Each structure stands twice: as C-alpha cells, then as structure tokens.
C-alpha cells in the first residue's frame, strides 16, 4: 500500500507569472525543507483569499498572541502554539503538540493553577477584559497621523514639546501596530479557555448522544443578548423608522446606497431624521467587516454601505407588511432551555446529569466572551486599525511616495516604516522623497502577482498525514477532525457533483447557486439564491434573510454564521473545503443541511 500523503510543500509548483511572491511576506513565514515531514492545513477560514503584503500582519500577530497564551501564559498541557507558513500567498498552519508525557505533567500543574484562576474568576475577569478592550479601541481611535505643514504649529515651540511632528509619523504608525498586537493578546487571552469549556461539553454530548447534530451543542449554550446581533438589530430599527417616516419607497432592491442617501436628502425633515438615525447607529454598530477582519479590503458597513443597504429593502418591505422583525429572544431562550432539559432527561444516571449541568453551566459562563469578542476585536477595533493604516497611506500618497492611499497595503508593515522614514527625512531636509521611484514599481508588481496568485487553488492540506489529530484549537476553531482529513485524502472518488461538509443548520432546499469569492460582492446576492462562499462572516446576517441556503468552504458548526443560519431557519453546510471550486454561479444545487451534503443537480 502506498504511503498516504498530501502534496509536499517542497513539491508545490510555482505559479507562472507570480515569481517573487516571497518578498511580500516575512522570511519566517516561508516553508523550510523539513516542513515536508509535518502536517499543514490551509487556513481558509481566516484567510480565504491571497494575502496582500501588509495584511500578512493578520497572521503574524494573531499567531504570536495565541501561542503566547496557550504555550507560555496558561501552559496548556498538550499543545504549544500554532506555526504558520505562507505559500503562493496562502496561509497554512499547524499546531505544535507536546508529546512528552513528563513534560505534559509539568505543564499540567501550571495549567491547573493558571487556567483555574481564570475559570474561577471568569465573570470578574471578563468584565475587566471588556474595559481593557474598549480602552484599546479608544486608543486606536485617538492615534493621529501628523500633519506635515511648511512649519510646525507655533504651540509645538511655545508648549516646550521639543519634538517636531515628523517624529510622530513613525511613532504613531508604530503605535497602531503595537495596539493591534495588544488587541490580539487580549483576543486570545480568553479564547482557548473558552473553547476548552466548549470542547468538554461537546465531547460529552457526542459520547452520550452520538446522533446529536454538532449544532445542537451550540443551541444549548447560546445566549440571547449577543453583541454580534446588534448591527442587524440596528438595521431593523432603521427599517422601522423608514416605514414610520413614510420613506419606504426609497428602499428598492438593487439601488446603490449613494442614490438612496441623496434621495433621502431631498425628503425634508423625514429624510433628515432618518439620516441622523443612521449616523447614530453607525458608531459603533456599523463597525462590522464584511469579512472577518483579516483583509484591509473587507470594508466595514461604516466604510461601505452596500451590505446594510442590500438588506434594508427586504426589512422595510416586511415591516410595511406588518411583520415583527424583533428577535423573539424569549421564545429562543425557552427553546434553548427546553432542548437542554430534554437531553438532560435522556441521560441514564444522576451522576451524568450532574456532570451535564456543570459542563453546560461552564459553557454558558464563557459564552458571552465567545460570542462577543468578535465584535470588539475583529470588527470594531480592526475596522479602526485599517482606517488608521489607510490614513498613513494617504500621507504617503500625499507626499508622492505612493499613487494612492490603499497602496500602503501592498507594503509589509516594516516596509511602511521605511517609507515613512523617507517622508520624515524629506520633510526635515527640504529634499524630495525617493520612495516614488522605489515603491511604486513594487506596488504595481505586487498587485499583478496577487491577481495571478488568486487563480491558484490551494490544496486543503500539505505534508504528512497526521497519526492522530486531537488538538483542541484545531478541532474547535477550524472544525478539522480525523474525518475531515479522510475526506480530503479521498477527495477524488466522486464525480465532482457532490460536496460534503458539516451540517451546520438543518433543512433541505434546492436553489440557484451564487458563488461569491470576494465578500464585498455580498450585495449582489438575490432573493432565494444559494450562497456559496469561501467563508461566511457574521456581518452577513442581514442578507441571510433573503437567501435559501448557505454553503462555505470552511467553518465549524460553532461559528457565529452557523448560529445565525439556524436562527433564520436556513439550511447551511460549512467546511466543505471545495464548494467554491466545484460549484459555479447559476448551477442548480441541493443543499442538505441535515447531512452536510451539497449536490449539483443541474
């Protein structure tokens, strides 16, 4: 029998026309010859697209932080951190296990003390966590891009600052990077402990009720007042206001946000009141990325109103028709408690019921963090972060180093500091920035390389097949298990019309597929279509109301998108690995959310 293996990293062929892509990423992100012996999987959940040079910071810094927490702060006994590599612009990762049993034992003693402190004081620590993260958001909002005028303002002299403004160009840029790093340390501070609680309850349920759908665990745990629902709730409020103010006629599917806004401007007092309400809702609730906060071009609702305005016409229509769009939190809470009580009643012994209560209780304790941290970290903070970096890009463009502000995202973050030093020097010396000649060809070349690499289909995994896959992070965050690996290995067996994934939300439905590779195109989706995408993002919630089903390449059943799909009663299959390559827009597909199967039927 031939030894089974995924393609080896060293055997991945260069993509013609994309030579030199390596320069976009740090040297420590490149595959090494010895990496062939290890198992790597494509993290398409967080990085479904090619990484622009600056955006690679969204893998470097999170992995710096998550590993620090699991390996060095909390001393998880069986796992250190996650290593990442970039090839052809795609991020592959692997978990570093602790295999030595004596070492596990040593780590376990520290783990009990340290994790025990957090679990034992969870509510207090989570309360403090929220304050810390809000302080970080205030800090990033306060970062200024210095203005470099002919002369520094007089106050700089009379105030005795003694430091000219060009100094703050680099300091303030660096502060953005530092704050981003701190945000990720806080993000991952509670993450693995929270998921630890989930894993425990999940494993218990799977053992006691092997037929239980993965999503049922999340259904028993889910809380009702979840921050991630707020943006959608705000939209519904705006829709209600539009109906109340007799503005419903302006919200027509397919109309561009700019046209709707200018039409509102011509509707006198009512229009003005609605626009004021929109501004009020935007901060902070429109700081939700159309992606998951890992790409600069995944703009937030606040940056680009396409997504919220794609959802508004339907909400307006529903409210005008007398429907109540308020989340039925009481009913949802009752349903959650009923499900938990019925599963509990099916357990055989009082001991088991006692264990069930403890595990479920622990999950519900950590749940507010698990569900809400995304809004604070990936969305609110990260929206602000990219806005600030874009502002530094605007400075570089204004100084002639770059052609336009967004070109800054084609420089690595250390290269941006270089370019800013160029500006700082030129302003000081009265000379001219030399960056135009240096950076502009590089930016143009990198844009071309990204375009070329976007056509490459990354294999779901590389390297050796792991003997056992039991890393809790990999399982809970990426939904990758031994079965996933088997599916990837056996991927060529069928005729290509069937795609398998996780049953994330039950129900069976047929519809026309719309494949969205670029999440910014989410506004294009039409009533009744089946959304097929690399990854479903929480901020897509509002458009879930009008689609028939959702299919994603990657994602676990605990993901927020899966929870939202269930709440909308819409079938969803996630973590298919290949849906966006196998299915074409216009295909008729059958989505079986009960079994996690998608079939192209015509």
């Amino acid at each position, binding site marked *: 029998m031939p030894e089974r293996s995924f393609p080896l990293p060293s055997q991945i062929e260069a993509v013609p026309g994309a030579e030199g892509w390596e320069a976009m990423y740090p040297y420590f992100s490149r595959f090494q010859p010895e990496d062939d012996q290890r198992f790597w999987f494509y993290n398409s959940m967080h990085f479904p697209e090619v990484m622009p040079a600056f955006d690679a910071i969204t893998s470097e810094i999170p992995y710096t932080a998550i590993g620090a927490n699991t390996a060095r702060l909390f001393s998880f006994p*069986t796992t250190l951190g996650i290593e990442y590599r970039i090839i052809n612009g795609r991020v592959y990762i692997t978990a570093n296990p602790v295999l030595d049993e*004596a070492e*596990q034992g040593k780590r376990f003693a520290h783990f009990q003390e340290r994790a025990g402190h957090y*679990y034992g004081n969870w509510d207090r620590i989570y309360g403090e966590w929220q304050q810390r993260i809000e302080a970080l958001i205030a800090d990033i909002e306060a970062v200024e891009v210095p203005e470099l005028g002919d002369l520094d303002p007089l106050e700089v002299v009379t105030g005795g600052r003694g430091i000219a403004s060009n100094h703050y160009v680099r300091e303030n840029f660096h502060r953005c990077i530092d704050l981003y790093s701190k945000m990720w340390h806080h993000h991952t501070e509670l993450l693995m402990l929270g998921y630890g609680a989930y894993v*425990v309850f999940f494993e218990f349920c799977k053992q006691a009720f092997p037929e*239980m759908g993965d999503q049922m665990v999340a259904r028993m745990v889910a809380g009702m007042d979840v921050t991630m629902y707020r943006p959608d709730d705000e939209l519904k409020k705006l829709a209600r206001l539009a109906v109340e103010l007799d503005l419903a006629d302006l919200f027509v599917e397919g109309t561009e946000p700019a046209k709707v806004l200018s039409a509102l401007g011509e509707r006198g007092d009512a229009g003005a009141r609605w626009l004021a309400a929109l501004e009020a809702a935007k901060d902070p609730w429109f700081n939700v990325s159309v992606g998951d906060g890992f790409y600069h071009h995944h703009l937030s609702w606040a940056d680009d109103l396409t997504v919220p305005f794609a959802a508004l016409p339907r909400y307006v229509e529903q409210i005008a028709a007398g429907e109540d769009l308020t989340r039925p939190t009481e009913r949802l809470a009752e349903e959650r408690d009923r499900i938990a009580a019925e599963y509990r009643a099916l357990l055989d012994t009082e001991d088991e019921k*006692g*264990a069930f209560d403890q595990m479920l*209780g622990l999950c519900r304790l950590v749940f507010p963090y698990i569900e809400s941290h995304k809004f604070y970290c990936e969305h609110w903070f990260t929206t602000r972060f990219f806005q600030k970096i874009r502002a530094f890009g605007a400075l570089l463009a204004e100084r002639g180093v770059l052609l336009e502000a967004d070109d800054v995202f084609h420089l690595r973050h250390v290269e941006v500091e270089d370019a800013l030093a160029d500006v700082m020097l030129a302003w000081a010396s009265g000379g001219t920035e030399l960056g135009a000649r240096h950076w502009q060809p590089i930016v143009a070349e990198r844009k071309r390389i990204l375009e070329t690499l976007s056509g490459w289909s990354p294999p779901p995994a590389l390297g050796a097949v792991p003997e056992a896959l039991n890393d809790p992070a990999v399982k809970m965050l990426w939904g990758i298990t031994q079965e996933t690996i088997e599916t990837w290995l056996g991927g060529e067996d069928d005729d290509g019309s069937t795609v398998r994934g996780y049953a994330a939300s039950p129900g069976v439905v047929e519809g026309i597929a719309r494949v969205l590779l670029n999440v910014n195109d989410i506004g294009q989706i039409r009533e009744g279509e089946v959304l097929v995408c690399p990854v479903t993002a929480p901020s897509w919630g509002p458009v879930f109301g009008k689609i028939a089903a959702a299919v994603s390449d990657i994602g676990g059943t605990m993901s927020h998108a899966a929870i939202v799909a269930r709440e909308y009663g819409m079938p969803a299959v996630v973590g298919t690995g290949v849906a966006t390559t196998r299915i074409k827009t216009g295909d008729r597909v059958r989505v079986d959310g009960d079994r996690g199967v998608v079939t192209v039927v015509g």
Partner: protein
Amino acid sequence: MTTPSVLHFRDVGIGDVPTVGGKGASLGELLRAGIRVPPGFAVTTAAFRQTVEHLTVHGEPIPVRVAALDPTDADGLAAATAEVRAVLESAPPPEEVARAVTAAYAELCEECGDPTLPVAVRSSATSEDSAEASFAGLQDTYLWVRGAESVLEHVRRCWASLYSVESVTYRLRRGVPETDLGMAVVVQRMVDARSSGVMFTRSPLSGDKSVVAIDASWGLGSAVVSGDVTPDSFVVSKVTGEMKRTVAAKTRWHRPDPSGYGVVETDVPAELQDQPSISDDEIAELVATARRVEAHYRCPQDIEWAVDDAGEVFLLQSRPETVWADKDRAAKAAPAARPFDHVFNLLGGKRPSEG
C-alpha cells in the same frame, strides 16, 4: 384453574408471557396503553401442551417420545423428529383446541366484516433465550392466511417448528425438560400494508437514546426483516424533530399473492422505487407512537409497524431493545469538584498518576 386455549389480545398484558408468549403479551399491553394494533388473539401455551400430550407417536405422547431420544444419534434423531413434526402437522388436534381456534377466528372475521379475513399467524415465544428461539424457529411468521382450516394448519406448523433437529438437540444437550416446553401462536388481522418496517427508540447503530430510528419500505415488513430490500432510513431527534433522511432505491417488495392467499416477492414498480415509502406525517405519527410505547415500558423498544392504504399506522409488535442495554452499564461521567475540573480532565494530557 385451567388456562383457555385461546385468549384475546384485549384480555392479556405484559404479565401473561407464560401463557401467550412475548408477542401476544406485548400486543395486549400495547392495546392497554392505547396503541393501535391489529385485532386478534393468541393460541395459548396450554393449547400447545394439550395438543402435544394428546398426540402420540408410536403410542407415546410427544413429550415422552422426544425426551427419550439420544442427542448423539444424528440419524435416529432426524428420523424421529421428522415423525413428530409430521404427526403435529397432519393429525387432528384435540377437539377442544380446534373448536376454540375456529371460534376465535370466526369472531375476528365478524368483527372485521370479512368471512375469510386474511390474518398473520406468528409464533410467540415464552423464552428469553434467543439461541433457543433461533433454533426453534420461534421467529416463524405466516402472512396472508385465510380461512379457519388454514389458520389451524399454520398454528400447527408453528408448533412443529419446535421439533426441528436443531431445536430438539439443543434441548436434549442442555437438559431442558420437554414438559417445560411452551409456545404460543398469535393470530392477527392482516394489515394491508402499503408500507411497513421496523423502528427503534434509540439508534441501533450508536445506542443514542435521543433519536427514533425508522427503517421503512414498500409493502409488507417481511421484506425489511428478511433483508430482501434496502429500506429508507429516517433518524428523528426526539428533542427537536430534526431528521436524517436516507431514501433508498427499493427494488423488491413483499405483497399478498393475487390469489389472496400467501405472499409473493416481486419488483417494486419503477416509479415507486426512489420515492420515500412513508410521508412526513406518517413519520411524525410513528415517532409519537414509538415514544408512547417507550414511555409505557420505561425502556428502549424495538418495534414492528405497518401503514395501510388509508395511512393508518399500526404496531405489529414491540419488545425491549437488548443490544445496547449492556453497554449502558459502562462507566459514565460524574460531577467534578469544580465545573472547570472537567476541562482539566479532558485537556490535561497524560499524567503520572495514570501510569
């Protein structure tokens, strides 16, 4: 007090296994629980005993004759058991037994408004010993039997199955006294099954008690039980009603013979093969019924059922599920000192205390 030769389902319950066997007692119990079962009666173990003691082979009552056989003499045993079976199947039973069965059948015919009412004749074991049951042909089922003569004939055929070579050898080797031998036979109105199958109130594959697992196919349930067809599978959550649905290509079915007597196995019409054999409403009713039965018995059940042309659901029998019962006793989770100790137990890795 002597037990009558025949007892109606409505007159028996779960405590009557010694007289009417497991099937008979279960059908009576289901009726008491308000579950719809096809009407019928059980020919009791008393009728069986009376018959085998009344009939003689070479001048000896059957139990005496069989008890004297030598289990090591294969040829002799084969010849002797063949004689016993021939006598049981052909010699008239005691007048009283024949009269009771005939009268009970006539009453059933009248109740159902069909003078030659088709019935199912099925053996109903009194023993929990599944090995004995399989040797003794205690799973015998004769479908679509019509007329009193034919009913009696099939009852005797069920009885005769207790005297197969394997069954007798088994009893002799184990020293089971012939006088302890008992078998009842149930006679039940035939459901003109459009679809039928089996269901478990836990997953037969994983033991999960939170689901009802239904196997269903077109026609009579014998096609499902015998494995002549790959049935549709519906696994329904008791908690949420969510369903895993696998509709199979059902190529064969068991149907009543066009003559009205007996059963034939034929091809399912092409247009039906890929259609689900039961509707969602029927699934819902089956699940509800299964849960009532389980609640009544307070333990997981293994149930045979049928749906007639009018969409009416009937249960044909229900018995405790046994395969997973042992595994339930395996070590289970228990509460920890602090809830988060469960995390330490799962993520703790290997520790010196565990060796």
